[in-house]
């Protein structure tokens, strides 16, 4: 009886982010005539690109019911080192590779803490978050670095008329979507997040899977850092700060569950990231009080997590073991 009410409600919750997106477009569109223009929209997409890439990596981790709080710190360390190298005259390509390498390394540290030392992901990555920020500050001497124009040129470059950051983010999304839906690795990730106990019993390589998601998330953070640099052109001591919350919010807004096993990169996480940036962009357009921003962001995070929790609650209710087989049920 209850089950029959739960399913439509579940549908409704799945639909909530799309509804929110439409509402955001309508409200800001009505308040500012510059908001719903093609130029502004391209701008929003470019601004979303670094968040989207980091959030894609985060989605991998969230699918296994883990979390990676260190992504912003990884971005900072990567940007700090790459910035120093660029100022010392190293070629751009080497700087880019370094950022990705730092991401991979950061992910590897997280993976070891989670799989070998069996630390809870939240605690392990909280530790690496502080280590990373500390290292970044030490590398940059807490001074802002203005990078050579080659970084900014990267941000404004175009391929086939599409801004380069968008192309890169698009490629990442495409590859991630393929990995998650078309490879054994991807499908096994969903299984692991759904029921880790059964996954072990079924003989899935759980340690390898967990290691891989933190590596993926680290590399995505490195790449996200590069995209952010290409728009900012400088590394400040606050570079990458709170990116972990943007990434988690984007993923959860897009329907990825914090409880694991549920979520998609496209449209899910991408939609979440664009939605988040649209709201920021809209707030600027309507010249809202900057002190309101944190309140608005936090209420969005709260709403997204509330929806996720409600949904998981309903799923549990639907899947609860029955003692009696009632006539007419199912």
């Amino acid at each position, binding site marked *: 009886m209850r089950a029959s009410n739960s399913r439509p409600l579940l549908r409704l919750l799945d639909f909530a982010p799309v509804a929110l997106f439409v509402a955001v477009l309508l409200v800001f569109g009505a308040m500012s005539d510059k908001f719903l223009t093609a130029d502004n929209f391209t701008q929003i997409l470019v601004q979303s690109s670094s968040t989207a890439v980091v959030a894609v990596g985060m989605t991998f981790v969230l699918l296994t019911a883990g979390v990676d709080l260190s992504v912003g710190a990884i971005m900072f360390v990567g940007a700090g080192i790459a910035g120093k190298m660029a100022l010392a005259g190293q070629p751009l390509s080497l700087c880019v590779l370094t950022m990705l390498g730092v991401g991979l390394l950061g992910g590897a540290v997280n993976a070891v803490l989670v799989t070998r030392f069996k630390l809870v992901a939240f605690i392990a990555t909280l530790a690496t978050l502080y280590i990373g920020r500390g290292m970044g500050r030490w590398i940059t001497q807490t001074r802002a670095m203005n990078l050579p124009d080659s970084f900014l040129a990267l941000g404004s470059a175009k391929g086939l008329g599409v801004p380069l950051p968008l192309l890169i983010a698009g490629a990442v999304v495409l590859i991630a979507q393929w990995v998650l839906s078309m490879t054994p690795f991807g499908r*096994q990730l969903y299984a692991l997040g759904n029921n880790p106990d059964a996954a072990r019993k079924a003989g899935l390589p759980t340690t390898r899977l967990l290691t891989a998601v933190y590596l993926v998330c680290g590399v995505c953070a490195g790449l996200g850092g590069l995209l952010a640099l290409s728009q900012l052109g400088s590394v400040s001591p606050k570079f990458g700060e709170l990116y972990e919350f943007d990434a988690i919010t984007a993923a959860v807004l897009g329907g990825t569950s914090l409880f694991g096993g549920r979520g998609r990169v496209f449209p899910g996480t991408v939609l979440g990231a664009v939605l988040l940036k649209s709201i920021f962009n809209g707030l600027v357009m309507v010249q809202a009080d900057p002190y309101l921003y944190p309140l608005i962001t936090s209420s969005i995070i709260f709403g997204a997590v509330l929806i996720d929790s409600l949904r998981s609650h309903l799923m549990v209710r639907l899947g609860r073991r029955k003692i009696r087989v009632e006539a007419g049920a199912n």
Partner: protein
Amino acid sequence: MDFTPNNAERPKTNQEPVVVFERIEKSFFGVKVLQGVSFGVGVGRIVGLVGENGAGKSTLMNLLGGNLQPDAGELRVNGHRYTPRNPKDARAAGIAFVHQELNLFSNLSIAENLFLTDFPLLGIGVPWIDRRALRSRAAELLRQVGLDHSPDTLVERLPAGERQLVEIAKALGAEARVILLDEPTTSLSSRECERLFALVTQLRDRGMALLYISHALGDVLRLCDDLVVLRDGERVGSGATKDFTHDRLVSMMVGRQLNQIYPERRAPIQTGSSESMASPDGGAVLQVDRISQPGIVRDLSFKLGAGEVLGISGLMGAGRSELARILFGLDPFASGEVRLSGELLTGSPRERIRRGLAFLTEDRRQEGLCMEASIADNLALVGLPANSRTPARFLDFTGIQSAVTRMREAVKLSAKATDGQAVRTLSGGNQQKVVLGKWLLMEPKVLLLDEPTRGIDVGAKFEIYQLIHQLADRGAGVLVISSEIEELMGICDRILVMRGGEITGEFRRDDFDRERILAAALHSSKA
């Protein structure tokens, strides 16, 4: 090569069974759960394994699956010694399990569940799932188990019975030759059962060996070719199914002499049984009136008298623990009412504790104790509000200390244990005494006990029985849930039997009969 059936290497029969258990022994913490069990499962046979809760069935299964290793004896598969170290070894040996609680991933499609560790790929070394091959191979397996669904259907959309069939399809996909089914019918409707039985029979006819574990004796007698009966870790009977009758099976399963000692039970002050219901409130401390919760319990009514020890018997999954959780306010119920001393019982567990209800759960480690906290802290937990009466609610440590000391003596906690010792370091029996002491400190009007003596040595059991009787003698009502019928017969004034979320039998002390109680637990018609 000589293929004559009776060659020297196979002396016993002309065809050795696929799976052989030989003189298997296994102990846990010094308690023997399997004592030299031997039997085999042959090609094209369905062997039924029956026994009461705790007879050793699940241990045997865990040995076969590689989750446990035997202390002595030998397992053989296809004539070779078989020593699995993990579930993977079992799979490699062609053994598949269909468990009561299914191991499917509800967020994936049927096809993905079937081939999760062995996806068909577009090319060797190319990590790209060949969706078409996946779909067609899954469809073929689904056809074999008679499941009419698209392979792309998400498992979470399937009812329990069809998930069971997917598990079997998975076994077929892994090319298993031995399939072990553990209580496969507990959550199935009768139509789903029929479908499962037809499939199992068909698999047997295709030459598979099937081991079928179930409490549903009617099903076992109908479906199986051979039967093995376990009791207390020993094989007490085996042979062709036609040599067994329902009644004979039941008496073999329970036919043991009482080997535990129970304290003598004085006549209770009052009981809430049918006779006394005639009087207006019958002295009942707890009245349960037609409570129902869809999918869990239906129309449960009973009374618990002051000073009465009421037992609830039934098999695993009969809804006994769920009933206790509902009474304690942990789970909801849709209709009906519960009264404590004549007044409606509602609200949170906290409120119910205040009104005099106590609940010792079946899992003392997770739910009953703070394992890292001290004995004193655990004992004092429920009694804290009574020891913080000043307006500022400061704790009265002297009062708490004297209560702790009093309760330690009352429950006869081992003298070696100090008040500050962590509960984790205690034996199971002493841990349970701490939980019991915690509740006794509030002098409950009604105490609910769920498997109070599970995993506890005989001496501590006796003392816990005594405490239960003492509490009842002081006028409280005690409800004891236990899987051991003997235990309930030893300590209760009255026993209710549950099956499928309903009460299917009621027995008074002078009317206790092991076989009839078990019969009521197994099928409602005979109650």
